[in-house]
């Protein structure tokens, strides 16, 4: 088997359980490749299956047909124990953020670093740097539930980037951001891509659609993913 770097979808099918859902698949025979060092934007109407595709790429859902390969390895077919370990190479920005509300912003950033077996001082340093980058330096000790919607979203993005994961998946990462912060978030993703990360962003945000930072753009409709041209 060819060892293609990055994330690759081969004839990917997905439908929710149940006979009625099986007749209307969310994804049907999707073929795609997300290469390292590249930013890919996936657009599509609400309900088109963008979040589902992202969850499949993250190994949180299992495809009903086809497979997803990460650097040539068929991770979507691995049992959960192996997928859980592999997911340590992944940073995810969920649409609903999935922060731990009672933990402070800094503690939320600490969580993905714990399994990476870094030195405590290294963790502290990295968390501080990331909080400064995200314009959250003064809010590190505040519980996540006390932050505003936009701040929480930046914290979620920072959590995805901390530890410099190989794969970064972001679902509507700029939905609650002003233009300045949206630009800064795109710049952060670009920096991660320059360091060799595979980056896939799902969004309907016109600011992202119009951004020149994305190397590839795809449109998801009727269960199929079609490559679209930059505007």
């Amino acid at each position, binding site marked *: 088997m060819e060892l293609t770097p990055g994330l690759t979808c*081969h004839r990917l*099918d997905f439908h929710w359980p149940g006979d009625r859902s099986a007749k209307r698949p969310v994804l049907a025979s999707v073929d795609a490749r997300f290469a390292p060092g590249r930013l890919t934007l996936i657009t599509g109407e609400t309900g088109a299956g963008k979040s589902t595709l992202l969850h499949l790429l993250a190994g949180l859902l*299992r495809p*009903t*047909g086809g*497979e997803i390969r990460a650097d040539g390895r068929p991770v979507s*077919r691995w*049992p959960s*124990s192996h997928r859980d370990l592999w997911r340590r190479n992944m940073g995810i920005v969920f649409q609903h953020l999935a922060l731990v509300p009672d933990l402070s912003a800094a503690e939320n950033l600490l969580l993905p670093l714990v399994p990476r077996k870094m030195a405590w001082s290294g963790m502290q340093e990295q968390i501080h740097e990331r909080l400064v980058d995200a314009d959250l330096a003064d809010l590190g000790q505040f519980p996540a539930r006390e932050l505003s919607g936009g701040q929480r979203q930046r914290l979620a993005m920072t959590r995805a980037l901390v530890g410099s994961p190989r794969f970064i998946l972001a679902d509507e990462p700029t939905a609650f951001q002003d233009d300045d912060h949206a630009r800064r978030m795109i710049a952060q993703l670009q920096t991660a891509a320059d360091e060799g990360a595979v980056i896939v962003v799902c969004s309907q945000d016109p600011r992202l659609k119009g951004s020149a930072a994305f190397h590839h753009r795809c449109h998801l409709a009727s269960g199929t993913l079609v490559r679209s041209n930059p505007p």
Partner: protein
Amino acid sequence: MIWHPLTWAFWSAAFTGLLIYGLAAFRSANVFLDWQPDRADSRQLRRERDAEIAALLARGALACLAAAALLGLIGIALAWHWVVPGAMCGTGVLQAMGSYGSRALIFWGLALVILYAWWVLERLNRFDPMGGLTWQAARIWLTAAPFLLAAFIDSWQALMRVESTPPVSCCAAVYDQVLGETSAAAVTRRLLAASFWGHLAGSVSLLILAVRRIQRPERGSGILPAAIMILWVPAASICIKHFWSAYYYQVLSHPCPWCLFLSDYYGVGFLIFGCMAAAVLSSVSLWTANHIRRHPLLSKPAVKRIHQSAWQLLAAIILFTILTAGLALVWRLRTGVWMTNPF
């Protein structure tokens, strides 16, 4: 059926285990019948999910069935003789159960040995993300089905017989064996002597094999310890019954292995037969891991497993020897004579 809490505990664990076993077997059958790891179509992906769920269910089933077997053993050895008229230990209970009791014990043992081989294989299989041994694991899981069913049917028949049986005589069953020796006495003596030497030779061979596998786990045979074990277990059981038990009872001519489980002898039977079970399971583990040693992805964990199993085998045989021959030796040093003479 005996109205004893342990009986209900036994059946609860056994039926729960059987139910979960059945669910796992149903999914394993799907895997066994049409496993195609080279394909990634929806049917193969469903089978992969089946295999993962079957492995989870199977671990639960194995825990329940092992608990049921242990409860059954405790029942025979320690509890049910109170409700069998005339019984004083497991011998009386087995007498009341007729041939079903012994058959149930044998089938439980065989089923658990097969399921343990599955457990070893499954644990090694978890090191390969693509589950290269999934089909083999499904096959082993299904292989245990006839033995498990036979164990259930015989256990049911045995426990149903217990209450309706006429009073038994534990000691008569034991002493008849001693006093009834007439024409067959010479043959019996020869058989006992053969068992004694076979047991000693087996113990020494297993110790040597275990030490060699500890030193060089990547080299050696897996079948040899298993083959020796098949001969060693019956020989060792005969020796416990006819030679070693006398040093615990401190009386001659009481060849009863079940009294060793009683509190009068500090339940040492659990330790002695536990060591024997540990030795058997270690050899099963050695055999299984040795088969997997040549698998390109699983060679390292298989060698590690062989190393662990060899240590377990060594420890089990040493402890078994201390608990049996060790006590006899202490007696010999204290009194200057042996209580039993195998020659």
